[in-house]
């Protein structure tokens, strides 16, 4: 901080890279919007028991499909009730937990697998690279939705199964991007320098390579998280994902589908929330890419 005191030094050094990053981040509207929405939904998910006005499982068949406040309902159920008389807002709030949890854990699992494969391929090259590239091609040749449907149909739908299936299927993009970035980084002089001074391979990977590919990793994490959330909703919509009575947004759309003509809000509300979450995560990912890789911008 003494540097800042000295006007001469400040002139020479300019703002630090960290300060530049912060300034760019704050001026990026998409990133700010995405972060705020995602943070908000994460908070909602964590605080679900406090925020939810009702028990999301409490059924009341006598008050089924009460419309939301803005369609003539009452504040007792601000977003109305579903086909079994359960409070829609409460189910939506608890549904955020399911969606975010699946998104986060699936992205984590696939992130670990994909990064390990990608970095290994990029750093070691040769046979390791050939094997990893082959595995990536095999994986890319399998349509994700089809494989997920088949596996879930065989094993039966549950939260754990869905998370595992998605986690084991979505690593391809991690592997591709990590391999390319590692390939680039491992030719840099500082990596060569580390090798020359006799640093061990794990040390080089962890302290020289990883910090420099981390930015790319974050972007892929957000993309795959959004991808996993959408896939979970699709599987649940088809009745193969999270099983009732667990609240899940995809399941809510599926349950409201039959009454779509007369009570469109049953589908619109969970659909809209799902849309906003996925949009926010994608905007956040795009923003992070823009901010961390300014040379990518024209």
């Amino acid at each position, binding site marked *: 901080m003494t540097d800042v005191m000295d006007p001469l030094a400040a002139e020479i050094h300019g703002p630090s890279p960290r300060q530049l990053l912060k300034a760019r981040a704050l001026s990026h509207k998409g990133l700010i919007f995405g972060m705020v929405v995602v943070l908000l939904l994460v908070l909602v998910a964590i605080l679900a028991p406090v925020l939810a006005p009702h028990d999301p*499982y409490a*059924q009341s*068949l*006598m008050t*089924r*499909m009460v*419309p939301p406040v803005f*369609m*003539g309902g009452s504040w007792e159920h601000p977003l109305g009730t579903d*086909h*079994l*008389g359960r409070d829609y807002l409460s189910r939506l709030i608890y549904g955020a937990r399911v969606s975010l949890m699946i998104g986060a854990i699936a992205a984590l699992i696939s992130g670990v697998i994909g990064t390990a494969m990608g970095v290994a391929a990029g750093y070691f090259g040769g046979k390791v690279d050939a094997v990893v590239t082959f595995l990536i091609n095999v994986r890319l040749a399998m349509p994700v939705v089809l494989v997920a449907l088949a596996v879930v149909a065989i094993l*039966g739908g*549950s939260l754990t199964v869905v998370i595992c299936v998605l986690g084991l299927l979505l690593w391809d993009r991690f592997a591709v991007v990590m391999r390319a970035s590692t390939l680039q980084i491992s030719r840099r002089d500082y990596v060569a320098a580390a090798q020359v001074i006799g640093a061990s391979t794990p040390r080089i990977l962890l302290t020289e390579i990883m910090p420099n590919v981390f930015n790319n990793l974050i972007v892929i994490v957000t993309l795959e998280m959004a991808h996993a959330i959408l896939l979970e909703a699709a599987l649940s919509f088809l*009745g193969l994902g999270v*099983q*009732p*009575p667990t609240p899940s947004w995809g399941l809510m759309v599926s*349950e409201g*589908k*039959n*009454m*779509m*003509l*007369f*009570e*469109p809000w049953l589908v619109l509300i969970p659909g809209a929330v799902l849309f906003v979450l996925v949009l926010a995560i994608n905007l956040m990912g795009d923003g992070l890419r823009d901010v961390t890789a300014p040379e990518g911008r024209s």
Partner: protein
Amino acid sequence: MLAQKPTRSTLAAAVLMASVAMPALADKASETLNVAFTKELENVDSYFNSSREGVVLQRAIWDGLIYRNPETNEYVGNLATSWEWIDDTTLEFKLREGVTFHNGEAFNADDVVFTVNFVANEENGVKTQRNVNWMKSAEKIDDYTVRIHLKEKFPAAIEFLSGPVSMYPNEYYAEAGPSGMGLKPVGTGPYKVTEVVPGQHFVLEANGNYHDSPKGQPEIATIDIRTIPDVNTQMAELFSGSLDLIWQVPADQANKLAQMGQFTVANESTMRVGYLQMDAAGRSGEDNPFTNKLVRQAVNHAINRQELVDALLQGSSKVVYTPCFPSQFGCVQDVTEYDYDPEKAKALLAEAGYPDGFSIDFYAYRDRQYAEAITSYLNAVGITTNFNMLQYSALREKNMNGEVALSFQTWGSYSINDASAMVSQFFKHGALDSTRDDEVLEWLNVADSSTAPDTRVEYYTKALQKITGEAFWAPMFTYNTNYVFKDEVAYTPTSDEVLRFVDMSWK
């Protein structure tokens, strides 16, 4: 406010529909009645499908020897003019003269002999063997007299001959076989088929030469049946005018349609009973909780049957406590009834050694909404359910292997008005029997084979009282079905869940 709610949403729906409205293709002027089927029909040949849609077409395209009036339940001759029992296993029919098939072939004893001998032969693979396997063979006496020989005594023969057993043209069927018959059906019925596009639509045309049948004469010239799996699409087409009649409409949608005032909504009960099956015999594991009577009683007390009927099934559905449909012969209602009492259910569970409840796999194959509501009642008393929705055939197989501890099942008794069609189906130690009670088996054997009505009632009563007293099942409700059609269509549905085109007309 309350009155405004439906109007608002219905209005929204109407506006939505108006925006996608197609030119009206079907109406009284075009003489074509457009009908939707939800399920695809595997084969129009009525002996080679087992679906409700198949029954509907069978009644329109073919005739049986006998006809049962769906309102009076009286048997009258159709392709036969009279019949008599020669002995316990032989029926003799006098056939109607002057009847011709749609392709011009004349109807006579040869057709009956051929049809009966073909379907009764198990090798020919008739889909629902139960419908035909009581017949041994048929014998021609003269051109218009024929005898059907039964394998053994079978009091329901007349019922089956008036239902699923219809007469096929011998020359044509010998040549075309089931697949040819499925694509170009030929019968004697009130409607002839002019077009079959599997998975898309069937076109029926009134049979101008229809004989003087108790079914009556067809009034609507053309009927176009399309397969539309999605209920929302069906309703959209009903709004836009390209459909005139839809059926099997869920209660919620039917109510909304009724409020719109442009359609006739008719509700009829069906014989289908919804129940929870519990593994009392311990086939899914000796230690499964349902081997304990207290647990089974707790389940019975946990479910609010009245609320299910009032809020979900609606219409002419009723609460039931018997493992059979109340109108069935022998289905006495003097049985143990379990009122809705979640506190008592919890107390019973505690007494049974499950003070904190337990966790169990729950299976269902249809009506997800009902199944969810039921599991929610169970969850409320401490029985945690792992929800599994399976296809009917998959669940049936699992059930036969004794892998199912708790499931939501339904049974329609093939619309046969006798308790044996349900109780005896499930409590006589068959593969689907989850109880295996020897006393019940013994009583049902007496009740099923006796010819004296009093004895039958006496033994059914014994069996039903034990089944309900021991809470082997948790019977819950009967089903109903909704028919929705344009106001210009005149039709009164019957309680046997069969659409009868011949009874429909334009107003």
